C-alpha cells in the first residue's frame, strides 16, 4: 500500500518536476532581475555634504520620484517621438518589401530562387553594429562613394546624417538588415499553403495577381501579424544603429532613442536608479503596444471567422 501511494504521489508530482527547471530559470534570470530593476527604480542615492570619503553616500527610498522624473522628462518624450517617426518609416517599408519579395519568390516561374532568397536574407546575418558602421562610411559625405559619383555627375549631394534625411539613413539600415528575416517568415508560411487551393483558383480563372492578393495574402495574415509584432518591439528598442552613427555626426544626441537614454543614465551619468525607472516605463509601453496590437489582430480574426 505504501508503495502504491508513493507511486500515485509520484505521478501527481511529475508535472511539477518537469516544470521545475524552466520555473527556476525563469525566476533566476527573468523574474529576479526585473524585480531588482523595479527595486532600484524605487530608490535613489542620497549624498551628505561634499560626498567624499566613506559613508557619504547611501541608498534611500525614493517612492515614485524616479518615475515622476522619467514621465516628465521632455527629452524622453522627444526620443519616443523620434523613434515613432523612425518606426513609421521602417515598419511599412520593411514589411512591404518582405511581402513583395516573398510573393515573387513564391511564383512558379522565378529563376535562381535559392540564390535570390539567400541574397535577400544575407544582410540579416550581418550584426546590426557592423551594418551601421558600413552604412556610416557610405553616408559620410567626405568618404562616401555615392557622394563621389554624384559630385562627378554634377548632381546635388544630400547630407544623410542631418535633419529629416537622418531618419531615412537610419531606417535604411534597419530595412536592409530586417527585410530578409521577415521575408523568410512570410515565405515559409506561403510554402505551407496546400497546392490544391491554387489549383482550384486557377480552375476558377484567377490570374496570378488575383491569387496573390485574394488567396496568398489573406492566408499568410498570421505571419504578417507576427512579423509586425516583432518589428514593433525591435523599433521601440532601437539602440545600436543610432549609437553607432552618433560619433559621425552632430545630429544624433546621446539620448536619441529612449533606450539610449537608459544607457546614458546608467553608464554615462552613473544614475542607475533613474535608468531603472526609465527602463521599466519602456518595458511597460512596449508590452502595452505589442499586446494591444496582438489583441486587436486577434479580435479581427475572430470577427472574420464568425462571418
Amino acid at each position: 500500500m505504501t508503495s502504491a501511494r508513493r507511486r500515485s504521489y509520484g505521478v501527481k508530482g511529475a508535472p511539477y518536476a518537469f516544470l521545475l527547471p524552466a520555473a527556476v530559470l525563469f525566476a533566476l534570470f527573468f523574474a529576479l532581475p526585473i524585480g531588482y530593476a523595479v527595486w532600484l527604480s524605487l530608490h535613489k542615492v542620497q549624498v551628505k555634504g561634499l560626498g567624499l570619503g566613506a559613508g557619504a553616500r547611501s541608498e534611500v527610498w525614493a517612492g515614485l520620484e524616479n518615475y515622476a522624473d522619467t514621465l516628465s522628462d521632455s527629452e524622453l518624450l522627444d526620443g519616443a517621438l523620434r523613434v515613432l517617426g523612425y518606426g513609421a518609416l521602417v515598419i511599412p517599408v520593411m514589411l512591404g518589401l518582405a511581402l513583395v519579395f516573398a510573393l515573387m519568390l513564391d511564383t512558379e516561374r522565378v529563376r535562381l530562387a535559392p540564390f535570390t532568397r539567400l541574397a535577400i536574407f544575407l544582410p540579416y546575418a550581418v550584426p546590426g553594429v557592423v551594418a551601421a558602421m558600413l552604412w556610416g562610411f557610405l553616408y559620410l559625405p567626405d568618404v562616401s562613394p555615392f557622394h563621389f559619383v554624384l559630385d562627378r555627375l554634377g548632381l546635388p549631394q544630400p547630407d544623410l546624417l542631418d535633419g529629416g534625411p537622418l531618419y531615412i539613413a537610419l531606417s535604411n539600415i534597419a530595412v536592409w538588415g530586417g527585410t530578409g528575416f521577415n521575408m523568410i517568415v512570410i515565405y515559409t508560411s506561403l510554402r505551407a499553403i496546400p497546392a490544391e487551393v491554387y489549383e482550384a483558383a486557377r480552375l476558377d480563372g484567377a490570374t496570378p495577381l488575383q491569387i496573390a492578393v485574394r488567396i496568398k495574402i489573406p492566408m499568410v495574415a498570421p505571419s504578417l501579424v507576427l512579423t509586425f509584432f516583432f518589428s514593433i518591439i525591435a523599433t521601440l528598442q532601437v539602440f545600436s544603429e543610432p549609437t553607432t552613427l552618433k560619433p559621425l555626426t552632430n545630429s544624433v544626441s546621446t539620448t536619441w532613442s529612449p533606450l539610449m537614454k537608459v544607457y546614458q543614465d546608467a553608464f554615462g551619468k552613473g544614475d542607475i536608479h533613474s535608468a531603472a525607472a526609465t527602463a521599466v516605463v519602456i518595458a511597460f509601453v512596449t508590452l502595452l503596444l505589442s499586446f494591444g496590437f496582438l489583441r486587436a489582430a486577434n479580435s479581427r480574426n475572430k470577427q472574420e471567422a464568425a462571418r
Partner: protein
Amino acid sequence: MPNTKLRRLRRWGATSVAVALGTTALAACGSSDDSEGEGKAESGPVSLTYWSWTPGMDKVADLWNEGPGRKDRVTVTVKKQASGDTLVTKILTAHKARKGPDLVQAEYQALPTLVSNDALADIAGEVDGVKDKFAEGVWQQTTLGSDAVYAIPQDSGPMMFYYRADLFKKYGLEVPTTWEQFADTARALKKKSPGTDLTTFSANDSGLFAGLAQQAGAKWWTTEGQKWKVAIDDAPTRRVADFWGGLVKEGAIDNQPMYTPAWNKALNTGKQIAWVSAVWAPGTLTTAAPDTKGKWAMAPLPQWSGGENVTGSWGGSSTAVTTDSRHKAAAAKFASWLNTDPEALTALAKEGGIYPAATTAQTSDAFTEPPAYFANQPDFYTRAADIAKTTAPSAWGPNVNVAYTTFKDAFASAAKNKSDFGAALRTMQDDTVADLEKQGFEVAE
C-alpha cells in the same frame, strides 16, 4: 592617457562593439564576476590585481615582480581593461559587490566620482616624498584639495598646437601665439582657400573643451566649506565658448566631429591644416594622417593675452588603490614605484607609449628622440617638457561625467545649428548643478 588617445580612432569601432555588449552589461550589472581581486589576508606572499588599459602594462608589472616585488614577495597581476569611462563604471560595479581589484588606473577627472563612491583608499600615509616628483598642478588633482592622497599621477596630457608646417608656408600663414591671431589665421586661410579649414570645433570629446577652459583659468568645481560650487558658466569658460562659437558661426572653421573617417581624410589630404591637441597627438596623427608624416610641427597653445604662458591638459591618468584591497600598503608601494622609479617609467614610455607625469621622467633617455612622425622636429620632447611645466591647475568635481555628457549633446547641437554656444554652456552648468542637487550634494550659489 596617450595610449587611450592612440586608440581613439579605433574607438569608433570599439564603442560600436561595446554597444553590442551593452545589453549584456546591463544584465550583468548587479552581479560580480571577479573574485580574484581579493588577495589572501594572511601574512606571506601577497598577490595584487591591477586593472589598467595601458598596453604593455603586464611587461612593466613583470619588472616589479622580478625586481622589488620579489624581495617583498608582492606579485602584481595586470588585467587589461577598456579605457576611460567604461572602466569607471566597472570599478563602481565591482566595488558595490566589495570585489574590486587592488589597483586601478583612473583618469584624473574620474577621481572625485570614485572617491565619492568610496571606491578609492586614502594612501597619504604610504607615499611620503612622492609628491615632489610631480608638478604642483598635476599632484593637486589626486588630493581633491584635501590632506588625503587618492592616487599617484601616471601620465599627463599638456595641450599644444599642431599645424601643417608646409601648408602654413604655402598659404603664407604665421603660427598664432594668441587666440586672436588664431581666429585671424582661420579667416585668412578661408579667404585664400575657401575649401580648406584651419581646424574643426568638435563636440565629441569633452576633455578638449575642459582643457581649453582650464587654460583660460576656469575652475569648474570648487568647494566652499561643505558645499560644492559649480562654475562652468563663468567668465573664463564663457570666453572660450564664445570664441569657438563665433568661429563656427562665421564659418571660419569646420563644425564636424573629430575621430571620424571624414576627419582622418581631411587631415590626411590637407583639407584641415591644424589641430589643437595634446602631447599624445603624434600617435593619433600617425593613424589618422599617415601620408603627411614629417609635414606637421608642434607649437605652444595660443594664449589669451600676449606674454602669457599657460596651457591646459587633455587626458592623463593615475594609479589608485581601492578600498576593497586587503593589502593597501603593498599596493601603494607598487603604485609609487610604477610612477616614480626611473626603470618603471622608461618601461612605461617604451611599452605603453605614455607621457609620464613625473617631471624628471619627461626629460629622461626615453624622450631624447622625437616621435617618428615628428622626425622633422628634433626638440619635440624638450619643448613638450617646457610646455608641461606651464599646465594650469584643474578642478574636478563628483559629477564630471554628467557635465561631459551634457557638453556633448548641447555643443553638438549648437555646432550643428551654428547657434549660441553661450546657451549650450548654460545648459551644461544647469544640468550639472541639477544633478548634484538631485543626488543630495550641497551646492553653493
